[in-house]
């Protein structure tokens, strides 16, 4: 069981809601994944409230928990205001905090991120910070009040998979009791398995599912891959070694010569 800010969840897969071919396919993917948390955004409404209302209704019908984000925010003030507006709309203290620092890599501005996290935690928000795999930044975020960390494993939407496994492993070892969710960069189910085998608590992904030829089928594949990685971590895996080790007992072996 995964617990995030006191909320128990059966699924370790968090899913974004963008870039699906249709709302129906998004809904199908959420159901196939068995995901209990979806990420949503806030944007300027131009249709008198009707476009946002239709989307919100779809999400409500799915019966999942909403994790609003501050995607696209490039400053602390922008992110803090967006978070407050998201709380107004969705009625949740959860916020996926993004403060983007670079247009090309969509890398977090970690300095602004820590500052925004501190402000929001002080106002009762339960912050899910989208951060890099930098250990010192992670420490600052925890000091700022974050009880969950969401390091990237590669740039958003890149599908490159884990680029720095050593850093992810170090973060896991350093924060044994902080839920760690890999956010961004996952491209295929095997990537998700790798990070779950490292002992990560969950995976947040979007494009890898939404951009698949069959998003619902891919969502199901990811759900299995995440569960497999988690089970392997809990079961305890062998460490690789240089030399062969016979798997069949040598004692009692017949001698024919």
């Amino acid at each position: 069981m995964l617990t995030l800010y006191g909320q128990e969840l059966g699924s370790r897969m968090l899913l974004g809601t963008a870039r699906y071919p249709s709302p129906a396919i998004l809904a199908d993917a959420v159901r196939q994944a068995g995901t209990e948390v979806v990420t949503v955004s806030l944007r300027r409404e131009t249709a008198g409230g009707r476009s946002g209302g239709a989307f919100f209704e779809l999400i409500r019908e799915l019966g999942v928990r909403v994790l609003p984000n501050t995607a696209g925010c490039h400053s602390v003030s922008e992110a803090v205001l967006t978070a407050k507006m998201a709380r107004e709309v969705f009625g949740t203290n959860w916020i996926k905090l993004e403060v983007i620092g670079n247009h090309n890599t969509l890398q977090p501005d970690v300095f602004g991120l820590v500052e925004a996290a501190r402000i929001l935690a002080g106002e009762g928000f339960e912050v899910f910070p989208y951060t890099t795999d930098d250990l010192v930044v992670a420490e600052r975020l925890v000091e700022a009040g974050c009880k969950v960390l969401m390091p990237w494993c590669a740039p958003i939407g890149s599908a490159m998979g884990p680029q720095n496994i050593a850093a992810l492993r170090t973060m896991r070892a350093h924060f044994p009791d902080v839920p760690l969710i890999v956010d961004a960069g996952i491209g295929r189910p095997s990537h998700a398995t790798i990070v779950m085998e490292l002992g990560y608590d969950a995976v947040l992904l979007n494009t890898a599912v939404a951009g698949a030829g069959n998003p619902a089928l891919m969502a199901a594949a990811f759900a299995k891959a995440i569960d497999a990685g988690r089970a392997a971590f809990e079961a305890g895996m062998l460490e690789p070694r240089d030399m062969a080790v016979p798997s069949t007992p040598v004692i009692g072996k017949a001698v024919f010569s």
Partner: protein
Amino acid sequence: MTYIVNGETLESSAKTLSELLLALEYEGDWLATAVNGELVHRTDRASHRLNDCDRIEILSPMKGG
């Protein structure tokens, strides 16, 4: 008065935020509003008086990752 609503300049006789939402035919309880960079809670819209050249943001749920 002149307002800047979601980046667009427009003229309106609305004096409060809730009057402006009504005049622009916004509906639903899923809207979030801010004036000049400050959140205005749903319950405060009726009493929030607008001033000339106020910048108003009206946001609603949207897909995101």
